[in-house]
Each structure stands twice: as structure tokens, then as C-alpha cells.
């Protein structure tokens, strides 16, 4: 199982910034511009440890991506965290059945906590620890 964190957002600069910061914490990251590119990557490389997912993207939105991903049983358990400018996106996260949502501008502590928890929890042999 890959420990890679996928960063799916159409803002290239934001992808790069997130990559840089998660890299400092020892995470391996891949940045992709939209849902379709993310699906293609997963098909080619297998499930990542975590997906940070923007909602509004061209070609394939975050919502469409999640729906497509959940079609495959093997991919139902990939943890997903939404990244959105919309303050009500926690609700969207619940409806889509994904872990949580980070509202832009993103709080760095919360980002690192959430990523650490989900990536670690997903490692084989590790226990899920309360956050």
C-alpha cells in the first residue's frame, strides 16, 4: 500500500504549497489538476494513503470523482479530505461520506493533524488513535 498523499486541486500554486508543507512532515505527495487526472493516477498506481480533494474543478468535479471512485469496492476505503472555500463544506463532506473538510484559508495545524491521523491510521498494523 502506497503512503502517497494525492493533492487534487486546479490551483497549481496551492498544490505546490501543500506539497512543500506535507513534504516537510515526511509525506510523499502527488499533485493533480482535476478529478479525471486523479482517477487515471489511481488506476495506474493503486490506492493512495489519502486524497486532499478540491470540490470545484474542470473536467471532473470533486463530487463526481468521489462517486466514480466509490464504484470500485477496492477504493471505498481511501480516506478523503475536502478542500473548499465554502464554509458549509462539512455538510457536503458528511453527505459524500468522506472524512472531513478543510476550509480555505487552510489552518496549517489542522491540516497537519488531519493528514497525520489519517495517513498513520491507514498504515498496516497501526491502531486508530482518537484525535
Amino acid at each position, binding site marked *: 500500500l502506497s503512503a502517497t498523499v494525492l493533492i487534487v486541486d*486546479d*490551483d*497549481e*500554486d*496551492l498544490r*505546490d*504549497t*501543500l506539497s*512543500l*508543507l506535507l513534504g*516537510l512532515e515526511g509525506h510523499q505527495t502527488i499533485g493533480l489538476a*482535476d478529478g479525471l487526472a486523479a482517477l487515471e493516477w489511481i488506476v495506474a498506481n493503486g490506492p493512495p494513503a489519502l486524497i486532499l480533494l478540491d470540490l*470545484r*474543478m*474542470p*473536467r471532473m468535479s470533486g463530487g463526481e470523482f468521489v462517486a466514480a471512485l466509490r464504484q470500485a469496492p477496492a477504493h471505498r476505503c481511501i480516506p478523503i479530505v475536502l478542500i473548499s*472555500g465554502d464554509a458549509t463544506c462539512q455538510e457536503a463532506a458528511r453527505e459524500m461520506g468522506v472524512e472531513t473538510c478543510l476550509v*480555505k*484559508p*487552510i*489552518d*496549517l*495545524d489542522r*491540516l497537519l493533524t488531519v493528514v497525520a491521523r489519517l495517513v498513520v491510521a491507514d498504515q498496516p498494523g497501526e491502531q486508530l488513535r482518537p484525535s
Partner: protein
Amino acid sequence: MGVLEISLLIVADATGDIVLAEGPERARFALDGAVGRSVAEACAPWPMLVDGMARAQAGHAGRGSVDAGGVGFDVRFQPRRRADGSSAGALLSAESIGGGASYDELARSERRLAEAQRLAHVGSWEWDVRADAVHWTDEMYRIYGLDPANFAGAYAAFLDRVLPEDRPRTEAVVRAALQQGEPFIYDHRVVRPDGAVRVLHTRGGAVKTEEGAVARLGGACWDVTELWEANQERDRAMSLLRASLEATADGLLVVDRGGRIAAYNQRLLELWKISAGTLDGVDFEALLSLVDPQLEPESAAACLRRVRALQADIEAESFDSLVFRDGRFFERYSRPQRIGDEIVGRVWSYRDVTERERSFRDTQRALAVRDEFLSVVTHEVRGPIASLHLATQALRRGVPADAATKLLEVIEREGRRVAHFTDELVDLVRIRSGQIAFVLAPVELIDVVREAATRAAPDAARAGSQVTTVEAGPALGRWDRGRVDQIVTNLLSNAIKFGRGRPIELRVESDARWARLLVRDQGIGIDEDARSRLFAPYERAVSPRRYGGLGLGLFIVRKLVEGMGGSVRLDSQPEVGTTVIVELPLAGACA
């Protein structure tokens, strides 16, 4: 009644004194021994006799009737003249026309007739043709505004009162009646002594002698002036209504309660594209079937439902809209037509509001585009702010030196992005309000192009594209250097963004009048549909989320180029590439 005979004869001299008063009825008039007294004094109980004699003294013949002691008399007045024509006095002859019980009855009957005639404004007349004696009833005198003392009782005196324009026709009618002896009906106008004109409707006939000659004409004469004036008024009102009906921009239709079309105007035919004559003898149902196919199915169904509802509720007013298959849009208004309190039909009016509706929809669309634009602005600005926020938080926590350098670069880059958005928005506002100003000075176009290419080199390298500049001709003009730089930078940044990492060429050339800049990429290209919208504000060829930015770039470029008297166009082929061509006037003319 028997043969009439002279009952009383009075002769007066030029001074009005009675010189003779004779006849079997003299005592009834209390004129025994009247000779030598004045007419005015002796005949004072009968003012009609005094008036008639006075008029005869003045040269006017007359005729009338008078009642004395229960007996009626027909009285004639005649002037007396000397050989030189001067007045020699007057004479009066009275004939008994009945008396006693039979006279009373006759008098009552005549009074009833006179009353009836007065109420009906109908007079009757008789003309004894051979004697040229015209006899009028009291109502005839009232109609003509005359009295027996000032009407000579002859045909010429009647004709004299007829309005001059109507005389030839009147005479023709009389001539025909005299010749043929047939009943006749005609209208003519007469003038009263006070100048008032009355309109008279006459029905008459002839009485023939045993030999078949016409002896008398007689008839009834109805004063129809008020009726005629009312008619004129109605004609005027109708003409006004008709003119108003045709002058309005609305199509109007009046349908009676039996479903028949009572009235419509030409505008209705135009609006419904119905040829003239099609509506003649057509009922409302047939009209509905003519217009139904012109409407959008949904609107046609709603239209019919409303018509049916109004047929059940005849007092209701209605207002609704009709949508046509050809894109037109009508407003329809209807209300009951009443005569007094009774509802006799329904008036429908149709107004073509297509232009208004179109402009409303255009406005709605423009507002929707602007809302979308605001949402794009919000989204686009959140990206750099999120990066800025993350980078500053990370620096505050403390990171390794090489990471800190990268984070500072992030801060600088994202700061520039936000500033760029702000510049674009400011330019948009200036362009929108016509406030963009150009500072003109000599500018070498290739210099600006080279500088922009150098500045964009890192971005181009990041995208994998190599930028080359070509100077194919001198291009020195009077332009706003900052704005030219903005144009070149904007076009180059598009070429990098959409260039798929392939080479980009910036080429400067010129002819006698124009400096020309060509920005050529080998990128994704733009399809035809998108090309037409590209230079409009808020539009973009691709989804707003795909490449970022506010979608204002080309709109601003176009406005800047046009502001300096130039033009911009675009050649593109999907998957082959795009060339943007900017032309600026060498003379530096500025709009």
C-alpha cells in the same frame, strides 16, 4: 261646414281709423258704431286683429284665425295702396268657420291636434295650388319661428324660408309632386328669423281634381333638428372611436356574447398575421383556430384555458402573456364590454412586448454572467490567499532554511497573483466607466516585446515553452508604453498558459500605416464558437476552473488596443495553435 261667406269686413285708413265696419257678425265683435274709432282701440279685445291690421298697414298681407263669442273666424288682412304705391290703409275680412256646439267640438279637436303636434314637433300644412294659399298649423309656425302675421301664406313665402342650398332640391320635389301627384318624402333645412337653422323631415301627398290635375299638396313636417344633431354627434363619436381604434399600437378585438366578432383594427391583423378579409363573417372560435398554431404549445393551451374561463365568468377582467413560436411575446388584456349595465361582449387588446421582453432577458443574462464572474473572482482569489496563509503559518512555526526560501517565493508569487487580479479588476472598472487614459510617447514596439519575453522567461520555462522574438520590420509609434507592455504581457501569458509547452513566437512587423505584433503558439487552440466570445468581458474559452484567471485578459487587451486606435484579431485551430494579431497605428493616433 258649408260655403264660407264674409262675416265681417273692416276697412281702415292710413292713420288706422276705421272707415267701414260691416257684416252679419259685426255685433259679435262689438263693432257697432266703430266707424271713426281707431282699430287699436275698437279691436283691443282681439290683439290678433290689431296686429294683423298694423302689419297690413305696413304693407304685409296676412292670415289667421280668431275666436269671438264661441265662433271661430278665418281672418285675412290686406294692405290698401294708392296708385303711387304708398299705403292707403288696410282691410280685414273674416269668415265664420263654425260655431255653437259643432264649433266647440271642432275647436277642442283642433286644440288636441295642435297639442299633439306641439309635443311631437310635427306640423302639418296644405297648399292650395291654384289660389297659391298655404295653410299651416300652429306647430308649423313654431317650427319656422313665424306667426300668422309675418307669414304671407304663399308658396314663395315658404320657399323664402328654405336654406338657399336646399332650395333647388325642394323645388324639384314640389315640381315632381305637382306633375306626378305621387306621395313624396324629403328633408330640407329652413332658417328662422333669428337665424337658427332647423332640419325638417317632410312626408307629403297630392289631392287631385276630378280632371286629374293636382289641386292641393299637403303633408306632415317633422322638426328633426335635435335628432339630426344627435346623429351628427354620433357620427363624430364613431369617427373618433374609429380613428382611436386605428391609431393605437395595440391590436383590438371586440367579440359579442354570441361569439361573433363585432369589431377589430388593422393592427390586430398585423399582429396576428391575418390577411384583410379573413375575419369577415368569422366567429371567435374560428379566430382561435387561426391563432392557436402560432403560439408555443404550452402558451396556446394556457391561452385557450383562459378564454374558456372568461366565457364562464363574463364579468372578469384578464391579463396574461402569449409566447409565439416565432419568438414574439404579447401581453393580452381583456375586459367586458357594457352598454349601460348590460354586458354585451368582451374587448381584447394585444400588445407586442417582444422588444421589452428581449431586453429584460438580456438584462437577466447579463446579471447572471456578472454573478458568475463574481463567483469566479471569489474562487480565484481564495487560491493565492490559501497559499499565502499556509506559507506564513509554516514560516512562523519554523522550517529548514531551504524550505523557508521556497515559502518566501510562494509568498511573493501569490502576492503578485492577488495584485494582478486587483489590476485587472481596476482596469475593468476603468474601461466600463470610460476612464482609461493613455499617456502617449514614442515607443519602439520590439523593445517592449523583448522586455516582456525576458520577464516571462521563468514562467515559460516552468511550462516548458521556449519564447523567441522576431523583428521583421521597424515599428516605432506614439503609444502608451505601460499599456503596450500590458498587452504584450497578457498575450504572452495566455500563450504560455495554453501553449502545451511548445515554442512561442513573438513577431513584430509593419507596413506604411500599421505596426503589427503576432503572438503565435502551438497550443490547444480555440474552437470557432469560443472565438466569438473571447474578447467579451467575463468570457473564456475554457471552463473557468481549468486554467485559472478572471477571464478578463482578452477583453482588457481589446479595449487597450482600440483605445490607442488599433485592432486585435485571432487565428486559431484546435490542437494546432493560436495566433493573436495586434495592429497599432504608426502615426500613434489615439481615439
